[in-house]
Protein backbone atom coordinates (compact mmCIF):
# COMPACT_ATOMS: atom_id res chain seq x y z
CA UNK A 1 0.00 0.00 0.00
CA UNK A 2 2.79 2.34 0.86
CA UNK A 3 3.68 2.81 -2.78
CA UNK A 4 0.28 4.06 -3.83
CA UNK A 5 0.19 7.72 -4.71
CA UNK A 6 -3.33 8.99 -4.33
CA UNK A 7 -2.47 12.58 -3.61
CA UNK A 8 -4.05 15.58 -5.20
CA UNK A 9 -0.81 16.33 -7.01
CA UNK A 10 -0.38 14.53 -10.28
CA UNK A 11 2.37 14.29 -12.80
CA UNK A 12 0.14 14.71 -15.80
CA UNK A 13 1.51 17.10 -18.34
CA UNK A 14 -0.88 18.97 -20.62
CA UNK A 15 0.20 17.00 -23.69
CA UNK A 16 3.42 15.15 -24.50
CA UNK A 17 5.60 18.05 -25.66
CA UNK A 18 5.77 18.17 -29.44
CA UNK A 19 9.01 18.95 -31.24
CA UNK A 20 8.00 22.60 -31.19
CA UNK A 21 5.31 24.24 -29.02
CA UNK A 22 3.67 25.65 -32.16
CA UNK A 23 3.42 22.22 -33.80
CA UNK A 24 0.07 20.50 -33.39
CA UNK A 25 0.67 17.23 -31.49
CA UNK A 26 -2.28 15.58 -33.16
CA UNK A 27 -1.94 16.49 -36.87
CA UNK A 28 1.58 18.00 -36.91
CA UNK A 29 0.53 21.24 -38.62
CA UNK A 30 2.92 24.01 -37.76
CA UNK A 31 1.93 27.59 -37.04
CA UNK A 32 3.57 30.95 -36.54
CA UNK A 33 2.87 32.74 -33.25
CA UNK A 34 0.62 35.30 -34.91
CA UNK A 35 -1.40 32.56 -36.62
CA UNK A 36 -2.00 30.79 -33.32
CA UNK A 37 -2.89 34.05 -31.63
CA UNK A 38 -5.44 34.75 -34.35
CA UNK A 39 -6.98 31.26 -34.03
CA UNK A 40 -7.03 31.44 -30.18
CA UNK A 41 -4.49 28.62 -30.07
CA UNK A 42 -6.78 26.17 -31.80
CA UNK A 43 -5.39 24.09 -34.67
CA UNK A 44 -7.24 25.13 -37.80
CA UNK A 45 -6.62 21.74 -39.40
CA UNK A 46 -7.85 19.37 -36.67
CA UNK A 47 -9.33 21.48 -33.88
CA UNK A 48 -6.68 20.59 -31.29
CA UNK A 49 -6.70 23.08 -28.41
CA UNK A 50 -3.17 24.23 -27.58
CA UNK A 51 -2.54 25.30 -23.97
CA UNK A 52 -3.64 28.91 -23.57
CA UNK A 53 -1.80 31.30 -21.29
CA UNK A 54 -3.77 33.31 -18.72
CA UNK A 55 -3.18 36.70 -20.38
CA UNK A 56 -4.18 35.36 -23.79
CA UNK A 57 -7.28 33.79 -22.27
CA UNK A 58 -8.29 37.08 -20.66
CA UNK A 59 -7.70 38.92 -23.94
CA UNK A 60 -9.88 36.39 -25.76
CA UNK A 61 -12.77 36.68 -23.28
CA UNK A 62 -12.80 40.25 -22.00
CA UNK A 63 -13.95 43.29 -24.00
CA UNK A 64 -10.87 45.24 -25.14
CA UNK A 65 -9.54 47.42 -22.35
CA UNK A 66 -12.12 46.21 -19.83
CA UNK A 67 -9.88 44.04 -17.66
CA UNK A 68 -8.74 45.56 -14.36
CA UNK A 69 -6.43 43.17 -12.54
CA UNK A 70 -6.72 42.70 -8.75
CA UNK A 71 -4.45 41.32 -6.03
CA UNK A 72 -1.32 41.81 -8.13
CA UNK A 73 0.77 42.21 -4.98
CA UNK A 74 0.37 38.59 -3.86
CA UNK A 75 3.45 36.39 -4.15
CA UNK A 76 4.13 32.90 -2.85
CA UNK A 77 6.13 32.56 0.32
CA UNK A 78 8.00 29.47 1.43
CA UNK A 79 6.32 28.58 4.73
CA UNK A 80 8.06 25.21 5.06
CA UNK A 81 11.51 26.23 3.87
CA UNK A 82 10.88 23.48 1.31
CA UNK A 83 13.86 21.97 -0.44
CA UNK A 84 13.75 18.93 -2.71
CA UNK A 85 16.29 18.70 -5.49
CA UNK A 86 16.00 22.48 -5.66
CA UNK A 87 14.67 25.07 -3.19
CA UNK A 88 11.02 26.07 -3.69
CA UNK A 89 12.07 29.73 -3.76
CA UNK A 90 14.26 28.99 -6.77
CA UNK A 91 11.44 27.17 -8.58
CA UNK A 92 9.19 30.16 -7.88
CA UNK A 93 11.72 32.67 -9.16
CA UNK A 94 12.21 30.65 -12.33
CA UNK A 95 8.46 30.32 -12.92
CA UNK A 96 8.02 34.04 -12.39
CA UNK A 97 10.77 34.83 -14.87
CA UNK A 98 9.53 32.39 -17.49
CA UNK A 99 5.86 33.35 -17.30
CA UNK A 100 5.92 37.00 -16.27
CA UNK A 101 3.25 36.09 -13.69
CA UNK A 102 3.37 36.34 -9.91
CA UNK A 103 1.66 32.94 -9.52
CA UNK A 104 -0.61 30.48 -11.31
CA UNK A 105 -3.80 32.58 -11.20
CA UNK A 106 -4.78 36.03 -12.46
CA UNK A 107 -7.94 37.68 -11.14
CA UNK A 108 -9.75 40.91 -11.92
CA UNK A 109 -12.84 42.73 -13.10
CA UNK A 110 -13.85 42.46 -16.75
CA UNK A 111 -16.71 42.83 -19.17
CA UNK A 112 -17.69 40.05 -21.56
CA UNK A 113 -19.80 41.47 -24.42
CA UNK A 114 -20.63 44.40 -22.15
CA UNK A 115 -21.69 42.23 -19.19
CA UNK A 116 -19.67 42.90 -16.06
CA UNK A 117 -18.13 39.93 -14.25
CA UNK A 118 -15.18 38.92 -12.11
CA UNK A 119 -12.59 36.73 -13.84
CA UNK A 120 -10.23 34.15 -12.26
CA UNK A 121 -7.94 32.52 -14.81
CA UNK A 122 -5.28 29.90 -14.16
CA UNK A 123 -2.02 29.47 -16.05
CA UNK A 124 -0.56 25.98 -16.39
CA UNK A 125 2.81 27.41 -17.38
CA UNK A 126 3.38 28.59 -13.80
CA UNK A 127 4.50 25.44 -11.94
CA UNK A 128 1.89 23.27 -13.64
CA UNK A 129 -0.91 25.55 -12.50
CA UNK A 130 -0.47 24.13 -9.03
CA UNK A 131 -2.60 25.58 -6.23
CA UNK A 132 -0.76 26.93 -3.22
CA UNK A 133 -1.60 29.73 -0.78
CA UNK A 134 -1.55 32.48 -3.42
CA UNK A 135 -3.90 30.71 -5.84
CA UNK A 136 -6.24 29.90 -2.93
CA UNK A 137 -6.17 33.49 -1.68
CA UNK A 138 -6.67 34.98 -5.14
CA UNK A 139 -9.63 32.74 -5.86
CA UNK A 140 -11.05 33.53 -2.44
CA UNK A 141 -10.72 37.28 -3.07
CA UNK A 142 -12.29 36.89 -6.52
CA UNK A 143 -15.35 35.33 -4.82
CA UNK A 144 -15.58 38.28 -2.41
CA UNK A 145 -15.05 40.80 -5.16
CA UNK A 146 -17.87 39.23 -7.23
CA UNK A 147 -20.19 39.09 -4.21
CA UNK A 148 -19.53 42.71 -3.25
CA UNK A 149 -19.96 44.01 -6.77
CA UNK A 150 -23.03 41.77 -7.29
CA UNK A 151 -21.72 40.16 -10.43
CA UNK A 152 -20.98 36.56 -11.44
CA UNK A 153 -17.54 34.97 -11.21
CA UNK A 154 -16.11 33.24 -14.28
CA UNK A 155 -13.26 30.84 -13.43
CA UNK A 156 -11.06 29.20 -16.07
CA UNK A 157 -8.97 26.36 -14.62
CA UNK A 158 -5.86 24.54 -15.75
CA UNK A 159 -3.96 22.80 -12.99
CA UNK A 160 -2.04 19.70 -12.07
CA UNK A 161 -3.32 19.87 -8.48
CA UNK A 162 -2.10 21.11 -5.13
CA UNK A 163 1.39 22.61 -4.82
CA UNK A 164 3.39 19.99 -2.90
CA UNK A 165 6.06 22.48 -1.88
CA UNK A 166 3.55 24.15 0.46
CA UNK A 167 2.73 20.86 2.18
CA UNK A 168 -0.46 20.68 4.22
CA UNK A 169 -1.16 24.38 3.58
CA UNK A 170 -1.61 23.48 -0.10
CA UNK A 171 -4.23 20.88 0.89
CA UNK A 172 -5.95 23.56 2.98
CA UNK A 173 -6.56 25.61 -0.17
CA UNK A 174 -9.25 23.05 -1.08
CA UNK A 175 -11.53 23.84 1.91
CA UNK A 176 -10.51 27.49 1.65
CA UNK A 177 -11.73 27.86 -1.93
CA UNK A 178 -14.81 25.72 -1.19
CA UNK A 179 -15.73 28.00 1.75
CA UNK A 180 -15.25 31.03 -0.53
CA UNK A 181 -17.59 29.49 -3.14
CA UNK A 182 -20.21 28.91 -0.44
CA UNK A 183 -19.99 32.57 0.60
CA UNK A 184 -20.38 33.54 -3.06
CA UNK A 185 -23.39 31.23 -3.44
CA UNK A 186 -24.95 32.79 -0.32
CA UNK A 187 -24.53 36.25 -1.85
CA UNK A 188 -26.72 35.08 -4.73
CA UNK A 189 -24.06 35.42 -7.40
CA UNK A 190 -23.29 32.73 -9.94
CA UNK A 191 -20.05 30.81 -10.41
CA UNK A 192 -19.36 29.77 -13.99
CA UNK A 193 -16.47 27.30 -14.29
CA UNK A 194 -14.59 26.48 -17.46
CA UNK A 195 -12.13 23.61 -17.24
CA UNK A 196 -9.26 23.75 -19.69
CA UNK A 197 -6.74 20.96 -20.18
CA UNK A 198 -5.73 19.66 -17.68
CA UNK A 199 -7.79 20.21 -14.53
CA UNK A 200 -6.79 17.53 -12.08
CA UNK A 201 -6.24 16.83 -8.38
CA UNK A 202 -6.98 19.52 -5.83
CA UNK A 203 -8.48 22.09 -8.19
CA UNK A 204 -10.91 19.52 -9.61
CA UNK A 205 -11.71 18.41 -6.04
CA UNK A 206 -12.56 21.94 -4.90
CA UNK A 207 -13.89 25.03 -6.66
CA UNK A 208 -13.68 23.83 -10.29
CA UNK A 209 -16.52 21.33 -9.89
CA UNK A 210 -18.69 23.57 -7.69
CA UNK A 211 -19.81 25.98 -10.40
CA UNK A 212 -23.49 26.66 -10.96
CA UNK A 213 -22.45 25.87 -14.51
CA UNK A 214 -19.51 23.60 -15.30
CA UNK A 215 -18.07 23.76 -18.82
CA UNK A 216 -15.03 22.10 -20.35
CA UNK A 217 -12.89 22.59 -23.42
CA UNK A 218 -12.79 19.71 -25.92
CA UNK A 219 -10.51 16.84 -24.91
CA UNK A 220 -9.54 18.51 -21.61
CA UNK A 221 -8.35 16.02 -19.01
CA UNK A 222 -10.48 16.30 -15.87
CA UNK A 223 -9.44 13.55 -13.55
CA UNK A 224 -8.81 13.51 -9.80
CA UNK A 225 -5.99 10.99 -9.64
CA UNK A 226 -4.93 11.17 -13.29
CA UNK A 227 -4.69 8.27 -15.78
CA UNK A 228 -1.11 7.38 -14.81
CA UNK A 229 -1.99 6.66 -11.17
CA UNK A 230 -5.26 4.90 -12.05
CA UNK A 231 -3.44 2.69 -14.55
CA UNK A 232 -0.75 1.87 -11.98
CA UNK A 233 -3.28 0.88 -9.31
CA UNK A 234 -5.87 -0.95 -11.37
CA UNK A 235 -3.60 -2.45 -14.06
CA UNK A 236 -6.60 -2.08 -16.34
CA UNK A 237 -6.41 -0.87 -19.89
CA UNK A 238 -7.99 2.54 -19.72
CA UNK A 239 -10.49 3.70 -22.35
CA UNK A 240 -8.97 6.11 -24.89
CA UNK A 241 -10.92 9.08 -23.62
CA UNK A 242 -10.39 8.21 -19.94
CA UNK A 243 -10.88 11.29 -17.79
CA UNK A 244 -11.38 13.51 -20.84
CA UNK A 245 -14.11 16.11 -21.19
CA UNK A 246 -16.10 13.85 -23.54
CA UNK A 247 -16.18 11.02 -21.01
CA UNK A 248 -17.09 13.42 -18.22
CA UNK A 249 -19.99 14.71 -20.31
CA UNK A 250 -21.19 11.16 -21.05
CA UNK A 251 -21.17 10.32 -17.34
CA UNK A 252 -23.07 13.45 -16.41
CA UNK A 253 -20.19 15.17 -14.64
CA UNK A 254 -20.31 18.45 -16.59
CA UNK A 255 -22.91 20.60 -18.31
CA UNK A 256 -21.37 21.15 -21.74
CA UNK A 257 -18.21 21.02 -23.83
CA UNK A 258 -17.52 24.36 -25.47
CA UNK A 259 -14.87 24.73 -28.19
CA UNK A 260 -12.69 27.76 -27.56
CA UNK A 261 -14.00 29.97 -30.39
CA UNK A 262 -17.51 29.59 -28.91
CA UNK A 263 -16.50 30.29 -25.32
CA UNK A 264 -16.93 34.05 -25.31
CA UNK A 265 -20.45 34.03 -26.85
CA UNK A 266 -21.42 31.11 -24.57
CA UNK A 267 -20.30 32.93 -21.44
CA UNK A 268 -22.02 36.06 -22.66
CA UNK A 269 -25.28 34.15 -23.04
CA UNK A 270 -24.89 32.61 -19.56
CA UNK A 271 -24.18 36.02 -18.03
CA UNK A 272 -27.43 37.27 -19.64
CA UNK A 273 -29.30 34.27 -18.23
CA UNK A 274 -27.98 34.86 -14.72
CA UNK A 275 -28.56 38.59 -14.89
CA UNK A 276 -31.23 39.52 -12.34
CA UNK A 277 -34.19 41.26 -14.00
CA UNK A 278 -34.40 44.86 -12.91
Amino acid sequence: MAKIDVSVETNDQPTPPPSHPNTCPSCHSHYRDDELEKSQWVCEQCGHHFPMRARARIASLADPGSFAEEATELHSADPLGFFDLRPYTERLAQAEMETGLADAMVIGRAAIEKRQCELAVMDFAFMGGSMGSVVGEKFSRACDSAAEAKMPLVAVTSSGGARMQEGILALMQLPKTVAAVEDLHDSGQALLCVMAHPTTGGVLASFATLGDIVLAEPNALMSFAGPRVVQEITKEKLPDDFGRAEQNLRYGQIDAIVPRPELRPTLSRLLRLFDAPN
Partner: protein
Amino acid sequence: MPPTEHELRLRERLGRLRNLPLLGGARISGELERLQRQIERIGEEATDEEIWRKVELARDEDRPYTLDYVERLFDDWFELHGDRALGDDGAMIAGLGKLDGRTVVLVGQQKGRDVHERASRRFGMPNPEGYRKAWHAMELADRHGFPVVTLVDTPGAYPGVFAEQHGQGAAIARSQSIMARLKVPIVACVIGEGGSGGAIAIALADRVLMQENAIYSVISPEGCAAILWRDAGQKKKAAAAFRPDAVHCRELGVIDEVVSEPVGGAHIDPDLAARLLGQALRESLAELDGIPGDDLRRRRRARFRSLGVFA
Protein backbone atom coordinates in the same frame (compact mmCIF):
# COMPACT_ATOMS: atom_id res chain seq x y z
CA MET B 1 23.47 23.39 25.80
CA PRO B 2 24.10 24.72 22.28
CA PRO B 3 21.11 24.54 19.93
CA THR B 4 21.03 21.48 17.69
CA GLU B 5 21.17 21.81 13.94
CA HIS B 6 17.51 20.90 13.89
CA GLU B 7 16.63 23.68 16.28
CA LEU B 8 18.66 26.19 14.31
CA ARG B 9 16.79 25.20 11.17
CA LEU B 10 13.49 25.68 13.00
CA ARG B 11 14.47 29.06 14.36
CA GLU B 12 15.46 30.19 10.92
CA ARG B 13 12.15 29.01 9.55
CA LEU B 14 10.24 30.74 12.31
CA GLY B 15 12.18 33.89 11.61
CA ARG B 16 11.05 33.70 8.01
CA LEU B 17 7.47 33.04 9.08
CA ARG B 18 7.59 36.03 11.37
CA ASN B 19 8.48 38.29 8.47
CA LEU B 20 5.50 37.20 6.43
CA PRO B 21 2.06 38.69 6.59
CA LEU B 22 -0.06 35.70 7.59
CA LEU B 23 -3.57 35.67 6.20
CA GLY B 24 -6.73 37.23 7.57
CA GLY B 25 -7.69 34.67 10.19
CA ALA B 26 -4.20 34.63 11.57
CA ARG B 27 -4.37 38.39 11.95
CA ILE B 28 -7.72 38.10 13.67
CA SER B 29 -6.60 35.48 16.13
CA GLY B 30 -3.36 37.25 16.94
CA GLU B 31 -0.50 36.47 14.62
CA LEU B 32 2.20 37.40 17.08
CA GLU B 33 0.69 35.31 19.80
CA ARG B 34 0.68 32.32 17.49
CA LEU B 35 4.28 32.84 16.45
CA GLN B 36 5.30 33.16 20.08
CA ARG B 37 3.65 29.83 20.78
CA GLN B 38 5.45 28.36 17.81
CA ILE B 39 8.78 29.43 19.23
CA GLU B 40 7.91 27.92 22.59
CA ARG B 41 7.08 24.68 20.81
CA ILE B 42 10.45 24.35 19.17
CA GLY B 43 11.56 21.92 21.80
CA GLU B 44 8.50 19.76 21.21
CA GLU B 45 9.00 19.54 17.49
CA ALA B 46 9.83 16.21 15.94
CA THR B 47 13.17 15.35 14.37
CA ASP B 48 13.36 13.76 10.90
CA GLU B 49 13.59 10.24 12.34
CA GLU B 50 10.70 10.91 14.70
CA ILE B 51 8.63 12.15 11.78
CA TRP B 52 9.23 8.93 9.87
CA ARG B 53 8.39 6.92 12.98
CA LYS B 54 5.04 8.76 13.08
CA VAL B 55 4.37 7.86 9.44
CA GLU B 56 4.95 4.21 10.39
CA LEU B 57 2.79 4.45 13.50
CA ALA B 58 -0.01 6.18 11.60
CA ARG B 59 -0.02 3.24 9.16
CA ASP B 60 0.51 0.52 11.77
CA GLU B 61 -1.72 -2.46 10.95
CA ASP B 62 -2.69 -2.81 14.60
CA ARG B 63 -3.65 0.82 15.03
CA PRO B 64 -7.28 1.29 16.14
CA TYR B 65 -9.57 2.14 13.24
CA THR B 66 -12.83 4.10 13.18
CA LEU B 67 -15.03 1.16 14.21
CA ASP B 68 -12.69 0.31 17.11
CA TYR B 69 -13.39 3.78 18.52
CA VAL B 70 -17.11 3.58 17.72
CA GLU B 71 -17.36 0.35 19.69
CA ARG B 72 -15.64 1.92 22.71
CA LEU B 73 -17.21 5.39 22.66
CA PHE B 74 -20.78 5.15 21.35
CA ASP B 75 -23.92 3.62 22.80
CA ASP B 76 -26.90 2.54 20.68
CA TRP B 77 -24.71 2.62 17.57
CA PHE B 78 -26.70 2.26 14.37
CA GLU B 79 -24.76 2.10 11.11
CA LEU B 80 -26.13 3.75 7.99
CA HIS B 81 -25.15 1.85 4.84
CA GLY B 82 -26.93 3.65 2.05
CA ASP B 83 -25.70 6.42 -0.20
CA ARG B 84 -29.23 6.47 -1.69
CA ALA B 85 -27.80 6.27 -5.16
CA LEU B 86 -25.37 3.55 -6.15
CA GLY B 87 -23.94 1.38 -3.44
CA ASP B 88 -22.61 0.75 0.06
CA ASP B 89 -18.96 1.77 0.21
CA GLY B 90 -17.15 -0.18 2.93
CA ALA B 91 -14.31 2.34 2.95
CA MET B 92 -16.63 4.92 4.53
CA ILE B 93 -18.57 4.37 7.74
CA ALA B 94 -21.56 6.49 8.73
CA GLY B 95 -23.96 6.09 11.59
CA LEU B 96 -25.82 7.39 14.60
CA GLY B 97 -24.83 6.82 18.19
CA LYS B 98 -25.01 8.25 21.67
CA LEU B 99 -21.97 10.01 23.07
CA ASP B 100 -22.63 10.80 26.75
CA GLY B 101 -26.36 10.37 26.19
CA ARG B 102 -26.47 12.77 23.25
CA THR B 103 -27.14 11.63 19.68
CA VAL B 104 -24.32 12.40 17.28
CA VAL B 105 -23.69 11.47 13.67
CA LEU B 106 -20.35 9.83 13.02
CA VAL B 107 -18.58 9.64 9.67
CA GLY B 108 -15.16 8.10 9.09
CA GLN B 109 -13.04 6.03 6.76
CA GLN B 110 -12.46 2.41 7.72
CA LYS B 111 -9.41 0.36 6.77
CA GLY B 112 -9.71 -3.41 6.95
CA ARG B 113 -8.17 -5.65 9.57
CA ASP B 114 -7.54 -8.87 7.60
CA VAL B 115 -6.69 -9.46 3.95
CA HIS B 116 -10.30 -10.01 2.95
CA GLU B 117 -11.63 -6.98 4.80
CA ARG B 118 -8.81 -4.78 3.54
CA ALA B 119 -9.76 -5.62 -0.01
CA SER B 120 -13.49 -5.10 0.54
CA ARG B 121 -12.87 -1.76 2.26
CA ARG B 122 -10.23 -0.76 -0.29
CA PHE B 123 -7.79 0.03 2.55
CA GLY B 124 -10.00 2.92 3.60
CA MET B 125 -9.93 4.64 0.21
CA PRO B 126 -13.49 5.75 -0.56
CA ASN B 127 -15.26 5.80 -3.90
CA PRO B 128 -17.73 8.59 -4.70
CA GLU B 129 -20.47 6.43 -3.11
CA GLY B 130 -18.58 6.66 0.18
CA TYR B 131 -18.60 10.45 0.05
CA ARG B 132 -22.28 10.41 -0.89
CA LYS B 133 -22.96 8.21 2.13
CA ALA B 134 -21.19 10.82 4.25
CA TRP B 135 -23.25 13.68 2.73
CA HIS B 136 -26.44 11.81 3.45
CA ALA B 137 -25.49 11.27 7.10
CA MET B 138 -24.33 14.87 7.57
CA GLU B 139 -27.47 16.32 6.02
CA LEU B 140 -29.50 14.09 8.32
CA ALA B 141 -27.56 15.55 11.26
CA ASP B 142 -28.30 19.08 10.08
CA ARG B 143 -32.04 18.39 9.81
CA HIS B 144 -32.20 17.05 13.35
CA GLY B 145 -29.65 19.23 15.10
CA PHE B 146 -27.20 16.39 15.84
CA PRO B 147 -23.51 17.31 16.10
CA VAL B 148 -21.20 15.61 13.59
CA VAL B 149 -17.98 13.81 14.51
CA THR B 150 -15.67 12.69 11.71
CA LEU B 151 -12.71 10.33 12.08
CA VAL B 152 -10.20 10.67 9.28
CA ASP B 153 -8.10 7.63 8.34
CA THR B 154 -7.36 7.19 4.66
CA PRO B 155 -4.33 7.00 2.34
CA GLY B 156 -6.55 9.02 -0.05
CA ALA B 157 -9.59 8.74 -2.27
CA TYR B 158 -9.59 5.58 -4.40
CA PRO B 159 -7.94 6.13 -7.79
CA GLY B 160 -10.13 3.72 -9.75
CA VAL B 161 -11.66 3.77 -13.23
CA PHE B 162 -15.20 3.60 -11.86
CA ALA B 163 -14.46 6.24 -9.21
CA GLU B 164 -13.12 8.64 -11.82
CA GLN B 165 -16.03 8.03 -14.19
CA HIS B 166 -18.46 8.75 -11.39
CA GLY B 167 -16.88 12.02 -10.39
CA GLN B 168 -14.37 11.38 -7.61
CA GLY B 169 -13.10 14.98 -7.71
CA ALA B 170 -16.58 16.45 -7.69
CA ALA B 171 -17.62 14.12 -4.84
CA ILE B 172 -14.75 15.39 -2.68
CA ALA B 173 -15.61 18.99 -3.53
CA ARG B 174 -19.29 18.47 -2.81
CA SER B 175 -18.55 16.83 0.53
CA GLN B 176 -16.58 19.89 1.62
CA SER B 177 -19.29 22.17 0.28
CA ILE B 178 -21.92 20.38 2.39
CA MET B 179 -19.71 20.66 5.49
CA ALA B 180 -19.30 24.38 4.81
CA ARG B 181 -23.10 24.70 4.86
CA LEU B 182 -24.02 22.67 7.97
CA LYS B 183 -25.45 24.61 10.91
CA VAL B 184 -24.61 21.96 13.49
CA PRO B 185 -21.24 21.61 15.29
CA ILE B 186 -18.62 19.50 13.49
CA VAL B 187 -15.52 18.05 15.16
CA ALA B 188 -13.00 16.17 13.02
CA CYS B 189 -10.08 14.09 14.28
CA VAL B 190 -7.32 12.60 12.14
CA ILE B 191 -6.79 9.19 13.74
CA GLY B 192 -4.29 7.65 11.33
CA GLU B 193 -3.52 8.74 7.80
CA GLY B 194 -4.98 12.07 6.72
CA GLY B 195 -4.24 11.52 3.04
CA SER B 196 -4.88 14.51 0.79
CA GLY B 197 -8.25 15.14 -0.87
CA GLY B 198 -9.71 11.91 0.43
CA ALA B 199 -9.14 13.18 3.96
CA ILE B 200 -10.14 16.84 3.64
CA ALA B 201 -13.43 15.69 2.11
CA ILE B 202 -14.64 14.93 5.66
CA ALA B 203 -12.48 17.38 7.64
CA LEU B 204 -13.97 20.82 7.00
CA ALA B 205 -14.93 21.10 10.68
CA ASP B 206 -15.31 23.69 13.45
CA ARG B 207 -12.59 21.97 15.47
CA VAL B 208 -9.90 19.85 13.86
CA LEU B 209 -8.01 17.48 16.14
CA MET B 210 -5.19 15.11 15.38
CA GLN B 211 -3.89 12.18 17.36
CA GLU B 212 -0.28 12.42 18.42
CA ASN B 213 0.93 9.79 15.95
CA ALA B 214 -1.39 10.60 13.08
CA ILE B 215 -0.20 12.24 9.88
CA TYR B 216 -1.95 14.80 7.68
CA SER B 217 -0.53 15.62 4.29
CA VAL B 218 -1.13 16.89 0.78
CA ILE B 219 0.56 13.84 -0.71
CA SER B 220 2.06 10.59 0.56
CA PRO B 221 5.81 10.74 1.28
CA GLU B 222 6.28 8.09 -1.44
CA GLY B 223 4.26 10.08 -3.96
CA CYS B 224 6.10 13.29 -3.17
CA ALA B 225 9.48 11.55 -3.44
CA ALA B 226 8.50 9.96 -6.76
CA ILE B 227 7.53 13.32 -8.25
CA LEU B 228 10.05 15.75 -6.76
CA TRP B 229 13.03 13.45 -6.18
CA ARG B 230 12.04 11.12 -9.04
CA ASP B 231 12.68 8.25 -6.62
CA ALA B 232 10.02 6.87 -4.27
CA GLY B 233 12.88 5.56 -2.12
CA GLN B 234 13.51 9.12 -0.93
CA LYS B 235 10.29 8.93 1.11
CA LYS B 236 11.98 9.81 4.42
CA LYS B 237 13.50 12.93 2.90
CA ALA B 238 10.13 13.89 1.47
CA ALA B 239 8.35 13.38 4.81
CA ALA B 240 10.99 15.47 6.56
CA ALA B 241 10.55 18.21 3.96
CA PHE B 242 6.77 18.59 4.33
CA ARG B 243 6.42 17.33 7.92
CA PRO B 244 2.99 15.68 8.16
CA ASP B 245 3.13 15.34 11.97
CA ALA B 246 0.58 16.79 14.38
CA VAL B 247 2.86 19.34 16.06
CA HIS B 248 3.76 20.88 12.71
CA CYS B 249 0.12 20.92 11.60
CA ARG B 250 -0.78 22.76 14.80
CA GLU B 251 2.08 25.20 14.28
CA LEU B 252 0.61 26.11 10.89
CA GLY B 253 -2.88 26.53 12.34
CA VAL B 254 -4.19 23.62 10.28
CA ILE B 255 -5.33 21.73 13.39
CA ASP B 256 -6.49 23.07 16.75
CA GLU B 257 -5.36 20.37 19.15
CA VAL B 258 -3.12 17.33 19.44
CA VAL B 259 -4.82 14.36 21.13
CA SER B 260 -2.51 12.28 23.32
CA GLU B 261 -2.03 8.57 22.73
CA PRO B 262 -0.81 5.83 25.06
CA VAL B 263 2.99 5.65 25.28
CA GLY B 264 4.27 3.82 22.19
CA GLY B 265 1.13 4.53 20.15
CA ALA B 266 -2.64 3.98 20.11
CA HIS B 267 -2.27 0.28 19.21
CA ILE B 268 -0.46 -0.46 22.51
CA ASP B 269 -3.63 0.23 24.49
CA PRO B 270 -6.73 0.86 22.32
CA ASP B 271 -8.98 1.26 25.37
CA LEU B 272 -6.86 4.08 26.75
CA ALA B 273 -6.53 5.61 23.26
CA ALA B 274 -10.34 5.59 23.00
CA ARG B 275 -10.74 7.23 26.42
CA LEU B 276 -8.29 9.99 25.47
CA LEU B 277 -10.00 10.53 22.11
CA GLY B 278 -13.44 10.49 23.75
CA GLN B 279 -12.33 13.13 26.25
CA ALA B 280 -11.00 15.39 23.48
CA LEU B 281 -14.18 15.01 21.40
CA ARG B 282 -16.37 15.84 24.42
CA GLU B 283 -14.34 18.95 25.25
CA SER B 284 -14.50 20.17 21.66
CA LEU B 285 -18.24 19.54 21.40
CA ALA B 286 -18.78 21.35 24.72
CA GLU B 287 -16.88 24.39 23.40
CA LEU B 288 -19.22 24.55 20.42
CA ASP B 289 -22.39 24.07 22.45
CA GLY B 290 -24.86 26.91 22.33
CA ILE B 291 -23.23 28.77 19.43
CA PRO B 292 -26.02 29.68 16.99
CA GLY B 293 -25.89 27.70 13.72
CA ASP B 294 -25.33 30.76 11.54
CA ASP B 295 -22.36 31.84 13.67
CA LEU B 296 -20.89 28.33 13.68
CA ARG B 297 -21.03 28.20 9.92
CA ARG B 298 -19.63 31.70 9.45
CA ARG B 299 -16.73 31.00 11.83
CA ARG B 300 -16.07 27.60 10.23
CA ARG B 301 -15.75 29.17 6.80
CA ALA B 302 -13.62 32.01 8.16
CA ARG B 303 -11.33 29.49 9.86
CA PHE B 304 -10.55 27.74 6.59
CA ARG B 305 -10.50 30.92 4.53
CA SER B 306 -7.69 32.21 6.77
CA LEU B 307 -5.35 29.30 6.01
CA GLY B 308 -2.32 30.06 3.87
CA VAL B 309 0.95 31.95 4.00
CA PHE B 310 2.20 34.35 1.34
CA ALA B 311 4.31 37.42 0.86
